[in-house]
């Protein structure tokens, strides 16, 4: 008889338990949304977690270009932020200041000029500053296709094993740098 009553009490406690679990999960979601480690609106990112696509690009004359192997070798020492940009891209102008700050604080930023003329790229770098440790020229956009680039600007964070660990489609801004990018860098360290 008492077991019956106890079972009944347990059953009637079940809704509260379910709601408590749900509430805890929602709290976790909101917390992590604020920290920037959880974004229910982000679309799946097939590139993250995969190794860098192979490429070997010329430089923007007169500088030398680089290949995926170069990136891997550099990333073995320190994470590399690979940034697709173009002189014709207005958000890239906005982003230039953020990239400059990042390279000043010691992050290794490498640039790939997307579908652009060398002269225009040089003009762009002269006007808005050159935050890039090295620059390659993807004037045909083939490498961008291998990376699955949606549009410029777009950035990929490469870890010591040559694997893309974080990705951002669109310009980097202070919020992104302080939130998701910093979290990604912390997880690499």
């Amino acid at each position, binding site marked *: 008889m008492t077991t019956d009553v106890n079972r009944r009490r347990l059953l009637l406690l079940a809704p509260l338990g379910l709601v408590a679990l749900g509430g805890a999960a929602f709290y976790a979601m909101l917390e992590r949304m604020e920290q920037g480690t*959880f974004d229910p609106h982000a679309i799946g990112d097939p590139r993250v977690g995969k190794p860098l696509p192979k490429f070997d690009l010329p430089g923007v004359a007169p500088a030398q270009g680089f290949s995926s192997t170069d990136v891997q070798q550099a990333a073995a020492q320190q994470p590399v932020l690979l940034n697709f940009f173009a002189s014709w891209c207005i958000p890239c102008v906005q982003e230039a200041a953020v990239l400059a700050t990042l390279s000043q604080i010691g992050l290794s930023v490498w640039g790939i000029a997307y579908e652009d003329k060398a002269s225009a790229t040089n003009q762009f770098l002269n006007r808005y500053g050159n935050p890039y440790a090295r620059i390659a020229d993807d004037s045909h956009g083939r490498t961008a296709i291998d990376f699955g680039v949606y549009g410029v600007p777009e950035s990929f964070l490469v870890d010591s094993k040559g694997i893309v660990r974080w990705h951002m489609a669109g310009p980097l801004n202070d919020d992104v740098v302080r939130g998701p990018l910093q979290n990604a860098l912390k997880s690499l360290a």
Partner: protein
Amino acid sequence: MIPELGHFALALACVLAFAQAFVGIWGAHRRDARLIAATPGLAVGQLLALAAAAGCLVYSAVTNDFSVANIAENSAIAKPLLYKITGTWGNHEGSILLWGLILGICGGAVSLFGRNLPSGLRARVLGVLGGTSAGFLLFALTTSDAFARLWPAPPDGAGMNPLLQDPGLAFHPPILYTGYVGFAVPFAFAVAALLEGRIDAAWGRWVRPWALTSWAFLTCGIALGSWWAYYELGWGGYWFWDPVENASLMPWLTGTALVHSAIVVEKRESLKIWTVLLAIGTFSLSLSGTFLVRSGILNSVHAFANDPARGIFILSLLGLVIGGSLLLFALRAPTLASGGIFAPLSREGALVLNNILLCSICAVVIMGTMYPPFADLLLGQKISVGAPFFNATVFPLAIPTFAVMAMGPLLPWKRARLGPVLAHAWWAGLIAVIVAGICAIGMKIVTALAFGVAAWLILGSFAEVVERTLLFRAPVATSFRRARGLPTAVLGAAIAHAGMGVTIAGIAGVSLSQSKIVALAPGGQTQLGPYHFTLLDLRDAPGPNYQARIADIAITRNGVPFDTVHPERRSFPKAQQTTSDVTIETNFLRDLYVVLGEERDGQAVLRFHINPLAPWIWLGALIMAAGGMLSLADRRLRIGAPSRARNAAAALPA
């Protein structure tokens, strides 16, 4: 000055709500007659203060007071007056104020119409409503202030999302929210009953009209939202299983279950604990729906400005309201005595089955809606759950629900036999099978089945009415006399159930829709079904706060001139947004749906749909709500006055 008065009125309402909560619950607990007597006055006071606050916001909107941040962000001088008024609840801050106002109206209604309730129960109900209201008003005051000022005030406002600038949507929030918030009253009754530790038939009788009213409003609200999506978004669809739509469907499903299980409490004093849980669950789902939409957790096309900080506040509030009531439920429900027993095959049995099926559908919808964020949180997987999942899981559960729906009202209470029921309803079943059989020729089997189910529901629902009025078996005059003597509850139930049948027929009809997308230059022609379309002209026309591009299209049917329609594309320069103004030519049996798309090289992309029976989807919902309201009329004499009804019955000659 006026916005400050509004802000003050809001703060006053919040204070009154706290007082109402304390005085009501404490007074009833201490059986203090003075405190108990003070509660209704506080509820009415709260309502007046909230009405004043809402009035101030509307006044500021109408007078273009752009020093109020909320109005500067959402209104503009060029906006038509109607949308200046309705726009006050078209944004987060204003909609929270509307929420509070409707909750206040609920409290006021319980105070004014609940005079027949025992004063202790009424004080507790008002106390619970006051507590809930206090939480929401505090939320409005601290994180979502609709009266916050902006300095310097801009010369003109930013304007409203043009998609929302539509008469259908203007009245959608008040109706939907009345449905959502109305379930606060059954919730308050449930919590009050748990506090009192007593539930009886009278409780079921008091709760039912409130539940039924909210249910009817929620039904209309969902239908209006779906209708808006159909004609305004221009996609030709009416239900997208979008999380926001699901958020309104979930309380509707449990609310429907509640409306039915409360009958069992009223008539048979059974299913009490379950009914209390449903009352708590329905309001909890209403609240959670609001929370999920505003927190940004769900991925939806209908986005409010998302703010996780706000989310934390609402989540705590939800924890307090839902967690508190469920804790009380866990503590007190085991002590509630269960009532009458019944055989599986009986009216009660059918209602239990209805509850199980409706709650299963609700569980499936919750699963499908909540799985993506939970999978993301726990497994780190990005997935989206859409129409294929819901169609595959909801329909198998919906079909038995519909099958039982028409049968249930024919079963007697306590214990039933199948024989007499079949004797009453065989003709409806036969016609349904014939309909399904005819439809099966040249249609998909699911569609044919849906038409059969629709026929079964519409006809079967009236089987009881036919039976009781001896229709077709007695002279028409006798039937008419008997029909007038029929309780309106019986008629209301039959109408509501038939309304569901009409909706199903509409859904089945639209699944047969034909469509065509063509690019036409002026003078171009195209054919779809029996209709021939000629694009006569493409022209520009100015609107009050938009520029319209209009296509004039002549339609002939089998060569006979039929109609000329003018679909538009409107561009709103202020919002930098374009909307399509679909034309729908309807004769209630099918919609001709024409959309004007983008133009390129002198050619306009036009989309034509023929949607058979489309209007029936929303017509059915209206019929359902009307049925609910009709059966409410039956209760009027008996609401809270069981003794009077009994006396009246005794006074009638036997």
